[in-house]
């Protein structure tokens, strides 16, 4: 490298070409090829300082880009995990709703709705809707609502249960309520609901036996299972 009279500098063209080539590698983010060109140049002059500064700049850029890529990859993994968790929660919510009104067709035309847990007005309304729809869909003739698992209900909810049984009768099916415990029995008599036409039995077992016996009487010699 030399300095001319005007203060301009002259350098070997190969050094300039090399720098331009390195820059073009950097522009397409091929930092390895770029840095390979710049390392161990072995000349110590002012232009070499520029080359060194350029090298440091490229090294830092390469490092920053690498960290950004890693961070993006991590975010993407986290996003995928979050999406998977949300999907699971949605499925669980659907499962919980299904479980709150599990209607089982125990025999052809005989539906059983076992009610467990806590029944509030919301659940009570959902159960009625689901039971009535299922009676039509399955062409059921008998619906057994077993409330063995329920030890307490609000009076209005209990009243609504009796209304549900009456609605079942309006659809042309029988409704048997089984497993009423002493507390619920007191609630029902306390509010003075009209229990005419509502059949109640001690347990689900009794309800099924009664149904079987009646089917036997209606169709002697035919077993309930073979009805469909």
């Amino acid at each position, binding site marked *: 490298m030399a300095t001319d009279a005007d203060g301009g500098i002259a350098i070997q063209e190969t050094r300039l070409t090399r720098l331009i080539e390195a820059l073009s590698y950097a522009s397409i983010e091929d930092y390895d090829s770029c840095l390979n060109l710049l390392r161990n140049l072995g000349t110590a002059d002012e232009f070499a300082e520029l080359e060194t500064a350029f090298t440091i700049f490229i090294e830092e850029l390469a490092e920053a880009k690498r960290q950004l890529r890693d961070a993006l990859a991590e975010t993407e993994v986290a996003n995928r995990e979050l999406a998977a968790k949300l999907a699971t*929660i949605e499925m*669980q*919510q659907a499962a*919980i*709703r299904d479980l*709150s009104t599990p209607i089982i067709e125990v025999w052809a035309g005989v539906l059983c709705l076992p009610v467990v*847990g*806590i*029944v*509030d*007005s*919301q*659940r*009570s*309304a*959902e159960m*009625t*809707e689901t039971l009535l729809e299922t009676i039509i869909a399955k062409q059921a003739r008998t619906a057994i609502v077993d409330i063995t698992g329920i*030890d*307490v*209900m*609000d*009076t*209005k*909810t209990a009243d*609504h249960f009796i209304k549900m049984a009456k609605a079942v009768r309006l659809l042309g099916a029988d409704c048997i309520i089984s497993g009423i415990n002493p*507390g619920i029995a007191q609630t029902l008599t306390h509010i003075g609901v009209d229990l005419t036409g509502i059949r109640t039995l001690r347990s689900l077992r009794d309800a099924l036996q009664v149904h079987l016996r009646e089917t036997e009487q209606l169709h002697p010699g035919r077993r309930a299972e073979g009805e469909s």
Partner: protein
Amino acid sequence: MTAERVFAVGGWSDVAITRHQARRMAREHGVEPRRAGEVAIVVSELASNIVKYGVRGEIALHVAAGSGGGLALTVVASDVGPPIHDVAVAMLDGHDDRGPIDPALLAQRGGLGTGLGAVARLADGLEVRQESGGKQIIATFFRGLPGAA
């Protein structure tokens, strides 16, 4: 014997979780099963209302010694939803906060319109606080709790 638990309520699964936890918490403090069931029904009704009307909110359960020497259980339902238009009307069975619910619309509506009424019947005290930007419904229980006179 002081305890507090807070449950965020944003969806129906939160309602199910909160009512189960409420019953468990009452049972852990020696409340007999039927009364614990009533606490759970109240929590469930209030949580359902948060999902239906409250946009988002939470249920806080406190258990502490009451003024009468027995245990007192408090359910605080807070939400950021619109105020209850008419609390007295909303308390009536088969009503929402603006008047009677058409029975023909019950099925689409989800719920019977008896939730707040049930809360009033089952709890020993009920207070509704409405402020701009949200409301709080506070139900208290002391009757039938351990140590009650």
